């Protein structure tokens, strides 16, 4: 068994309203940053998986990412591979 580390990025699907991103974007100009647009806020999940191979671990994380970590109705999810630890 080896431990593999992953990062999972969850973001709202393009086109869906993102109130968090909008509020952040609207407040940046008051601090002097006036050239910012397209702010969107998502979730960043890191996790370790014990598995016999990297491929097996990745498949599992991808399944977890769509079944629990995100709601496919409103969110996109991306799995980034880290390193074996």
């Amino acid at each position, binding site marked *: 068994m080896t431990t593999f580390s992953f990062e999972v990025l969850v973001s709202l699907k393009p*086109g869906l309203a993102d109130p968090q991103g909008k509020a952040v974007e609207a407040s940046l100009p008051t601090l002097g940053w006036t050239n910012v647009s397209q702010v969107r806020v998502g979730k960043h999940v890191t996790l370790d998986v014990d598995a016999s191979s990297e491929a097996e671990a990745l498949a599992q994380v991808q399944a977890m990412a769509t079944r629990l970590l995100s709601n496919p109705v409103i969110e996109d999810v991306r799995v980034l591979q880290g390193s074996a630890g």
Partner: protein
Amino acid sequence: MSDPPLHRRLGLQDDEYERIVATLGRTPNHTELAMYSVMWSEHCSYKSSKVHLRTLPTEGPAVLVGPGQDAGVVDLGDGVAAVFKMESHSHPSAIEPYQGAATGVGGIVRDIVSMGARPVALMDPLMFGPLDEERNRWLFGGVVAGIGGYGNCIGVPTVGGELRFADAHTANPTVNVLCLGFADVDRLVTAGSGSPGPGSLMLLYGASTGRDGIGGVSVLASATLEEGSDDSRPSVQIGDPFAEKLLIEASLAMVEAGLLEGLQDLGGAGLTCALSESAARAGLGAQVDLDAVPRREDGMEPFEVLISESQERMLAIVDPAHLDEVRAVCDRWGLPSAVVAELVEGGGLMVRAGGSIVAEVPARSLADDGPEYERPAEAPPGDDVEDPTFLPFEKDLADAFVTVLTSPNVASNRWAFEQYDRFVQGNTVAGPGQDAAVVRVPGSLKGVALSTDGKGRYGRLDPYLGAVHAVAEAARNVSVSGARPLAITNCLNFGNPERPVVMWQFAETIRGMRDACLAFGTPVTGGNVSFYNESGDSAIDPTPVIGMLGLLEDHRLRVPSAFPAGGLSVYLVGDTFPELGGSEFAEVVLGIVAGAPPAVELTAEVALQGFLVAAAGETLLSSAHDCGDGGLAVTLAECAIGSGHGFAVTLASDLPTHVALFSESAARAVVSVDPTGEDRLVQLAGDHGVPLLRLGETGGPRAVVDGHLDLTVAELTDAWEGAFPRLLGERA
């Protein structure tokens, strides 16, 4: 294989399409077809329910505005109006429970604001499948969090509601939300209050417009895009309660300053609905400049902008002389705004985009002249299942008592209601956990009492009685608190109206609601119909949820539910009959949902209401609690749990003990009274023709039904309070 014609894919019937062609005198283009398809949908046009809804009583001395506007309005006296309405957001909640419930709250709040009223309270009647299924727990947790997440963030207290669990809601949760608002009568924004004329401007303000909620109509997009393009238009909407809060404050500032000729929220059918209804109400038409609508996304087609259901938007009708002031209010609250239309003579809605006319239809034809159906209705064959009332019962009575008390339909709702802010605005006299919530009218001694009640299980067995019970229980809940019931709103939750059985359930429900409302003198001020709550062969039980509004002239005279002290005399008001059909006891102890629901004697209900209000007015009652689910046993237990004061009572009844304890006979309440007031109470009951039975006294740490039950109040409290945490696996 050929696709069905476009209008059918948009949900329009062939004869509806013919009607559009006849109205326009030509074939509609795609944009126009999209507009008709949303406005003539069941959701917007009430085409299956209208003929039935018309039979409901809608007028009364207290009613200022009845059905047909964004919300009903009741006169509270002294120049104050109560504005209230209930709506469902069940379908969106089944897909994404948090956002579905959250945007439901947002929608009903905007309905209240659009009448010029400040939203002051929310109530949430919710129904789910049993919590032993994981998906049901996910839906339940998500909906509750969504209601809290939105309601808490806009500063409107959630003061009550109810939780119900039944197999029929596993595939189709029912999420209803009621909002109450207060307004000065002379500041109400109603169809008749403003005077928009030709030249008045329509200002869209709030969130920008994206492709939210286009859902079914997105077939148009795919019809016009290349084949095979994987264009998944999201139909789930994301709520932005922060924007809603700004929208509330900005809108009310405009109303307060007298700047508006009209105000409309954007909900179902989006701009199409807001523009056509506003124009039709003014008896005018409108020139619409779609290019002026602020967009969140690039490349939106005109039909998408017209029917988008993007949240947190409002449409103000403004005299051009006031435009700058209105826009200054928007700016102060950081809300983008844009003039998107101008009212014009004639009744035509002319929509321009990109330099050309993309739609030209009569406003009235969209808003008022939708189809109307008298759909076939047919009663289902009757079941020949034995009435549980007369089955022998040999189990342990104390076990049965705890089983009923810990049923999620009966147990403490604290797990959910602690997730809602009930304090904000500082006027919550009585919040969750009381028979009725009571909200103080700011600056006065008056209080508005509210209760929401639905009786799905009774409705399944007999939809007529289910509706009568729902109205009766809501009225009883209001009157036990000492308030006089004034008027109702409702949310009617049903399956597919194209099935004759469902239509029969609906017709029976309306008949029951009508009879009860006429008997109680509580007209229907509006409401909402939610059809198509079914999937496969599983439909929800016919469930009218009634929102009853009552008035307490002095909120300090409110009667609490629980025994406030020891040494009080306990009375049962009303007669108990052998009625276990459809009861909580029959379902959770006997495992039977069958038989006839309890009968309802409307004159007995009226007498009980009159007695309770009179007794409260004379400050005779130390407590009063409605007898509902779980019967007398549960009522007594809740009176004790609520305060920690026990009781010792005797059952003077010819009925078998379990029937006397768990029968759900209507028109009953348990009251406690100081011994010095007993004579007067008896006299008052005689005057009102209400049966009164002395049960015993309050006091001590135990709950004792002589010879039958003897438990500590602490045990009962632990069972009742711990039920949800245990069901959700948070406590052993």
